[in-house]
């Protein structure tokens, strides 16, 4: 990468760390460190919530997904606006006014200490691992693209994040998120403009080419539980997922607990409802744009340069032959794409048929190359994640590429910082202060909190270096996390049911997770529905258990 791009990335990282710490006030009290003394404005909290959710995976992987699979991924977010409105009138006032530092602390007031401890423990495990996975994803890509050791890439992301989170607490995290969100949007809009300018065909023709390969199929209205992204899984499953994520996950809850008032907390959530779908559509559309661009400019056969080098070293002649086939197939597909752009009426249908057949031929050749990667390296290629970084580094002008890479750093840092801050809060408030040392002063808790942030940062870095070599681990972590989300949401919903008792919540949570585990491993039902199943099972178990057994389950 050009030194100017590196300069932009370096300057940005230094600015985020220094300014984040500078903006932090009154972090010498626990309330100031964890909740910013409830002083943040709605727009700061809103941008922070959005930045937390927009991880580096979104910046790197989602455009790649747009390029290979089109716009259908947007359906995942269809439930988000509805979830935000529901949270705004239910959980937000409940938690903001309850005088709690963690969402799980509320569960002790409503039920008992073990329900709090179990939910908080599940959060620590799943989020601790996912912080590592979030760090691993950009670390692996940067390592391969820039040819630097993975440990360096992880350290480059992890160390500055731990520093400003540790020193500045939630205020440093929130203010850094604001800058990161602005940078991310600027980078995406600039890339979209560059794509439009550099595209050899006009936007209408580009969209026709994208449509011919199914990449503009946004909505799938079929009701198929085994299909991952449909309109219905997005609206129903997505609503439950977003309710769980924004309503019960400490990394999100802590943001709006820091808002000045309930009204400001509610408004901050609506900001996500406002922008999420348009922003996600922009990210995916950038990916679709890259796909169309690569119809006219030949992309590499393999996007991951490290894997390409490994295959060339081990299977040089076979890979060369494949590349020759690829060059011929690309020329034919390029002609077909131009024909689609130029054709109209009946000729357009025939041109599309030819184009689709030639695109399939390209995919067959790429499939052979990817199989070669798996043979040589012994791991899944994950080539989709490298499409966009390769495009950025080879096609964008100097400076803009630096802004994009800084944007990826920003996205990674904002998500990880929020996780670390929340992990530290839950560790100290729900465990250390609750069970080990309840009567210490603020200075003591602050010291422990900073230590906890450093511990979780180190933990995430270690997980990241291992997760990177075990590609499937990231998927396991994600599936592992989805076991809990719906069930924990069920406990919070149960808390709003009059007469619900602690044993109903505790055993409902365990049975809910068991039910989700059965669905995940024993059926083909897709993961979005698991959130619905987990929440519903907790309610179905918890309500009757509370009514007929009450508080006496253990006694009986």
């Amino acid at each position, binding site marked *: 990468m050009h030194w100017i791009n590196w300069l932009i990335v370096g300057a940005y990282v230094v600015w985020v760390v220094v300014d984040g710490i500078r903006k932090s006030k009154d972090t010498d009290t626990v309330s100031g460190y964890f909740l910013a003394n409830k002083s943040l404005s709605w727009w700061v909290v809103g941008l922070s919530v959005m930045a937390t959710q927009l991880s580096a995976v979104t910046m790197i992987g989602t455009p790649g997904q747009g390029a290979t699979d089109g716009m259908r991924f947007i359906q995942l977010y269809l439930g988000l606006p509805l979830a935000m409105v529901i949270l705004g009138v239910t959980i937000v006032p409940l938690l903001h006014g309850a005088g709690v530092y963690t969402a799980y602390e509320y569960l002790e007031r409503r039920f008992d200490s*073990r329900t709090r401890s179990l939910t908080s423990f599940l959060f620590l495990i799943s989020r601790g691992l996912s912080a590592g996975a979030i760090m691993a994803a950009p670390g692996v890509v940067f390592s391969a693209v820039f040819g630097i050791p993975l440990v360096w890439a992880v350290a480059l992301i992890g160390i500055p994040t731990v520093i400003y989170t540790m020193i500045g607490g939630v205020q440093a995290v929130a203010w850094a998120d604001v800058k990161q969100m602005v940078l991310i949007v600027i980078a995406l809009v600039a890339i979209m403009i560059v794509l439009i300018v550099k595209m050899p065909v006009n936007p209408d023709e580009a969209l026709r080419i994208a449509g011919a390969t199914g990449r503009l199929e946004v909505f799938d209205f079929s009701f198929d539980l085994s299909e991952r992204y449909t309109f219905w899984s997005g609206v129903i499953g997505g609503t439950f997922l977003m309710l769980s994520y924004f309503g019960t996950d400490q990394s999100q809850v802590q943001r709006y607990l820091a808002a000045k008032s*309930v009204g400001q907390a509610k408004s901050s959530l609506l900001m996500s409802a406002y922008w999420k779908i348009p922003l996600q559509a922009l990210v995916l559309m950038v990916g679709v744009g890259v796909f169309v661009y690569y119809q006219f400019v030949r992309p590499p056969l393999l996007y991951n340069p490290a894997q390409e080098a490994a295959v060339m070293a081990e299977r040089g002649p076979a890979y060369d032959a494949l590349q020759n086939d690829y060059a011929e197939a690309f020329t034919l597909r390029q002609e077909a794409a131009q024909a689609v752009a130029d054709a109209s009426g009946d000729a357009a249908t025939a041109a599309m048929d030819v184009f689709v057949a030639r695109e399939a031929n390209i995919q067959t050749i790429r499939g052979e190359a990817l199989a070669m990667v798996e043979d040589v390296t012994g791991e899944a290629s994950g080539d989709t994640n490298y499409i966009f970084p390769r495009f950025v580094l080879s096609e964008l002008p100097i400076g803009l590429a630096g802004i994009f890479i800084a944007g990826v750093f920003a996205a990674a840092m904002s998500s990880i910082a929020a996780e670390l801050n929340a992990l530290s809060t839950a560790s100290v408030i729900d465990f250390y202060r609750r069970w080990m040392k309840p009567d210490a002063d603020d200075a003591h808790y602050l010291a422990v909190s900073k230590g906890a942030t450093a511990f979780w940062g180190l933990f995430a870095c270690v997980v990241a270096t291992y997760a990177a070599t075990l590609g499937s681990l990231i998927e396991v972590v994600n599936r592992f996390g989805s076991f809990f989300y719906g069930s924990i949401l069920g406990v919070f919903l149960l808390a709003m049911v009059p007469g619900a008792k602690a044993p109903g919540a505790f055993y409902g949570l365990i049975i809910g997770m068991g039910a989700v585990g059965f669905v995940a491993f024993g059926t083909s039902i897709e993961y979005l529905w698991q959130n619905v199943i987990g929440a519903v099972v907790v309610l179905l178990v918890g309500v009757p258990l509370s009514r007929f057994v009450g508080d006496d389950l253990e006694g009986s």
Partner: protein
Amino acid sequence: MTALAGCLTLPRTVQEPLAFPAPESHDVMPEEIPNDGSDNSRFRTTLIRVIIVQVVALGLLLLLQLRYQP
């Protein structure tokens, strides 16, 4: 499973008050929290905008699909 067993054996105490200085609004229940009219007004205004933006965004995406997806 060890954690689960640990949680099962925890004493089922009731919630205790916070030991350290709590934020100002921690002392009051949700309905008592100072919440001036401008907050509620902003929430309503933003909610209406949310609905409009979502309808426009999803409508545009649907139009895109209908127009370009064979």
